[in-house]
């Protein structure tokens, strides 16, 4: 039986929406960059670099958005340090606490990979080039993969954070973490694709990214179906009135890229950028409807 709710809304709004999008895409692009290095070939290196270049600035935005959302922004450090004892503030059972630490640690990995990617480009100082060479070793790869685990977490935990509450919709489903992850990875592929339009050497990987995006989208669609099923009686909270418009955007951002693939005739007719743009709008719309509808 579903829980009855008599709760107040936390008023998590635009900063949180922006953070969820930035975290999802930053983590997602880091993971894509890593997977391309692990499983791709030399021709995929430019796209991998591009992914790490995108991931880092998106990560930088995250703590700023989170801090701005706080009622007491100057106390942001209370998330990490116990202000009474000066010890570490860490609660494994509180996703917000774990998320704050994960974001910090992921930030280190993301910075390292950004520097590595920078060092691989021409006209960089010798020191950076040397760092990049280390990254190619087994130890460097291990570091990159450990970073990818944190990236996956950062991309996904926001959904678990919502679920670990007593709010309607959020706490009525276990699917949100997985759903945000699948959508974040799909959005990340789309973002790398879009950015590769300006970097011909990265465009070599376009077909692979399109294929990966299709798998992530299928995963996302399965999770959206599970999300609806698990909501049962409160489904109407997310599927009523104006929220339907956002779901249409989500639908366009998932179904259109699949249709374009399965109906090659469409490919010629529509812009190459339309698919990735719809995917990114879908990433935004999905988070908006999930965040706002239960609080309205």
């Amino acid at each position, binding site marked *: *039986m579903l*829980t*009855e*709710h*008599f*709760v*107040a809304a*936390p*008023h*998590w709004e635009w900063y949180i929406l922006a953070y969820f999008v930035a975290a999802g895409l930053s983590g997602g692009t880091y*993971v894509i960059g890593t*997977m*391309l290095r*692990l*499983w*791709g070939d030399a*021709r*995929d290196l430019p796209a991998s670099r591009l992914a790490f270049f995108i991931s880092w600035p998106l990560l930088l935005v995250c703590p700023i958005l989170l801090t701005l959302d*706080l*009622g*007491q922004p100057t*106390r*942001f450090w*209370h*998330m990490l340090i*116990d*202000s*009474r004892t000066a010890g570490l*503030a860490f*609660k494994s*059972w509180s*996703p*917000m606490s774990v998320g*704050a630490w994960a974001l910090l640690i992921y930030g280190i990995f993301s910075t390292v990979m950004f520097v590595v990617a920078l060092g691989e480009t021409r006209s960089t100082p010798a020191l950076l080039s040397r760092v990049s060479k280390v990254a190619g070793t087994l130890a460097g790869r291990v570091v990159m993969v450990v970073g990818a685990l944190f990236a*996956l977490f950062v991309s*996904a*935990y926001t*959904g*678990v*954070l*919502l*679920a*670990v*509450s*007593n709010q309607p919709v959020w*706490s009525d489903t276990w*699917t*949100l*973490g*997985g759903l945000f*992850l*699948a959508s974040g990875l799909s959005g990340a592929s789309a973002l790398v694709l879009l950015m590769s339009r300006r970097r011909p050497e990265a465009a*070599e990987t376009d*077909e*692979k*990214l399109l*294929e*990966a995006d299709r*798998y992530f989208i299928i*995963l996302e669609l399965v999770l959206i179906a599970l999300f609806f099923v698990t909501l049962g009686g409160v489904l109407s909270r997310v599927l009523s009135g104006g929220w339907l418009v956002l779901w249409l955007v989500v639908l366009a951002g998932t179904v259109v890229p699949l249709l374009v693939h399965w109906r090659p005739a469409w490919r010629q007719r529509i812009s190459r950028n339309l698919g990735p743009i719809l995917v990114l709008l879908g990433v935004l719309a999905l988070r908006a409807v999930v965040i706002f509808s239960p609080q309205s």
Partner: protein
Amino acid sequence: MATPVGFFTDTTLCIGCKACEVACKEWNQLPDNPIQFRDSYDNTGQLDQRNFRHVRFVEQATSNPDKPIAWSMMSDVCKHCANASCLEVCPTDAIIRTEFDTVYIQQDVCNGCRDCIAACPYGVIGFDSQSGTAKKCTFCYDRLQNNKMPACAQACPTQSIKFGNLADLRKMAADRVQALQAQGVTQARIYGDTEYGGLHAFFLLTDKPEAYALPNAESAVLPGRNDVPGYLAVAVTSVLAAIGGLVAFRRRGERA
């Protein structure tokens, strides 16, 4: 540790005078409420950063045709849950359990993330945009430390709100339910003996909990119930996504 304390609120004795609300506002120096017209004698509306006590006016249908509706009043407050959802999720440890076994938000530690508001199943906590922090009933922590009873309990003219040693209050409540049932009030029941490990502010009700906007025993669940299933879903999705990435990115020698 001092003896655990509690509030036993007997809704059959409440007359809706709101003396508790006024005393609470006065002692805690809470701002007044914006004037608004509601379709009720209840012009407080809800518990939040301005209202640590809220006298809820509950309309109940009766079997008497001459008097089809009866009022029931309930002075609502933070339940100071033994297993408190707010305390569970608070990332900064601003929410603590005091030596009196009550739940208290340290205003100098809270950074206004509002996770506790999302977690409290009773909609008790409000966000104060002036202080930038979450606020709720303190159980008059300052008064307790000075051997004074909370302001609301002291002000209540009908003793609907009883303050005291938690164990004594539970015994008193059980006796009162028995007496009421013997008088024919068969719906009399205690809310808060078992919910969230036992509430420190518990109630005698004459209707099902939902009628007073209180989650029933099945719905009184902790946020942490979704921790493991949520992370499991993430783990499974991660594995499937990695397989997708492997298949997509591994292709070799297919390019022109």
